[in-house]
């Protein structure tokens, strides 16, 4: 296999965007092409989940490649639910590593605010098992709520720990001009004060409003290239060194221990294994905090902390921006937002920015190894990426 490098990055603001989905995918691609100093690519992957259902548009990759005047490059759309982004990066990685292509553009985009909040939640709920979950009214927040209740009982995680994740990530988002949520929050306001029940009502108890990520529009892009191209372009050499993916049962109820996220554990182990690294080597990570509990649980499953101790590391401040291992400096899904198809690419965008040392006020000092975890379904299809800065 050949080595694969991230040579260009781009992103849109995550918010409600009033321009077409194909342009949400194309805009960050233009930024990334300019960033890399490229005008052409060999192939393009577009990560997206809801174009057909939410935006009444199919064949998105064909639309995007033409919008960017990149024809006759090949183009495919990749759908793996909320992990579509990292899945598309994996496809790009394989295309370059195999020698089939030298330059591959991976762009992820979603326009979910075209429909109302109920329809957006319903659209994401179509990921669940059609007969064993969906018909009952199961949504992603409800699966997360049931998971959280068990996790709190088993590992003594409290509502305060969950709120601490929300405060940390929303405050990180204030340092990210592209983040959806630009609102400073405090534990007082969302947990302790008499007004907190109004400010922060239950969504799927024990999860409350500020435990859930927003519904966002947005796009992000990463261009992958061979070592020869990367060296010629002269950008800092950021190597995509590890790609790991794993799946778990479709219906959450079937998992032997319902507080385990086995697909996260396995995808991370495969990613670290390929990169020849250990979790302890990581300087900065972007984890899939669609719900606050997931940042805590994933930080354990990927191997940063022992099982059941992620909330203790959070309490000690280890995962904050100035801590030993900053998690979600971008604001995560909680603060940056979660346009489902774009999220995995946006996580990679943040890590490349951090490893280049270009993250401004939220820069993690001397970050050389970065990690992302992109969580599809409720943990039934997970992709983890490991990046290394080489020069």
């Amino acid at each position, binding site marked *: 296999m050949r080595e694969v490098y991230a040579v260009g990055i781009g992103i849109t603001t995550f918010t409600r965007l009033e321009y077409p989905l194909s342009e949400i995918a194309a805009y960050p691609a233009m930024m990334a092409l300019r960033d890399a100093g490229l005008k052409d690519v060999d192939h393009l992957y577009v990560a997206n989940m809801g174009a057909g259902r939410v935006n009444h548009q199919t064949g998105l990759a064909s639309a995007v490649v033409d919008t960017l005047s990149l024809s006759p490059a090949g183009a495919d759309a990749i759908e793996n639910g909320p992990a579509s982004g990292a899945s598309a990066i994996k496809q790009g990685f394989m295309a370059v590593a195999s020698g089939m292509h030298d330059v591959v553009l991976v762009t992820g985009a979603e326009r979910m605010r075209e429909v109302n909040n109920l329809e957006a939640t*319903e659209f994401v709920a179509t990921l669940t098992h059609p007969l064993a979950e969906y018909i009952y009214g199961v949504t992603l927040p409800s699966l997360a709520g049931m998971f*959280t209740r068990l996790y709190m009982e088993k590992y003594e995680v409290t509502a305060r720990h969950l709120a601490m994740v929300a405060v940390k990530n929303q405050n990180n988002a204030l340092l990210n001009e592209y983040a959806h949520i630009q609102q400073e929050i405090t534990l007082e306001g969302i947990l302790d004060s008499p007004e907190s029940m109004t400010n922060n009502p239950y969504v799927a108890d024990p999860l409350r409003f500020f435990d859930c990520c927003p519904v966002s529009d947005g796009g992000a892009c990463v261009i992958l290239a061979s070592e020869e191209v990367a060296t010629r372009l002269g950008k800092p050499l950021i190597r995509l060194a590890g790609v790991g993916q794993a799946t778990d049962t479709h219906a959450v109820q079937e998992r032997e221990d319902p507080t385990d996220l086995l697909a996260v554990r396995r995808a991370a182990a495969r990613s670290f294994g390929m990169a020849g690294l250990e979790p302890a080597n990581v300087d900065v990570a972007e984890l899939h905090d669609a719900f606050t509990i997931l940042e805590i649980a994933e930080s354990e499953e990927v191997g940063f902390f022992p099982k059941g101790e992620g909330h203790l590391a959070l309490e000690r401040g280890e995962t904050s921006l100035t801590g030993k291992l900053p998690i979600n400096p971008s604001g995560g899904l909680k603060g940056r937002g979660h346009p489902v198809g774009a999220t995995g690419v946006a996580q990679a965008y943040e890590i490349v920015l951090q490893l280049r040392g270009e993250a401004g006020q939220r820069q993690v000092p001397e970050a050389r190894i970065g990690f992302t975890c992109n969580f599809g379904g409720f943990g039934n299809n997970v992709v983890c990426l490991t990046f290394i800065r080489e020069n």
Partner: protein
Amino acid sequence: MARDIYAYKCQRCGHLHYPYRMVCKACKENEHNEFDPVPLPKTGKLVTFTRLYNLPGDFEVPELVLGIVELENGIRITGQLRIDAPKNGMTVRGEVEVVRTEGYDHHYGMVFFAS
């Protein structure tokens, strides 16, 4: 007539599956349809639950209680709860009822009550 939800027993090795899958998880030896449907028991213990306030648009109720129940035979099932104050570990009894209506389609599923 009392309705049932079915688990699927592999004809080769006897492993019980819910929900249905086309290849046995345990032996991976069976051909398509080599499963016997077995009615699921109706009583079990509540593993976890949530009270959901942000419902899909076709539910015309303000909230819905959803839970995972471990049935007597060890199979776990997700269902709706009609229990005022659910508690993890409590014993529950299920009945098969309409759990969702989409236009003219009525979907039947397990609804659990305190027993």
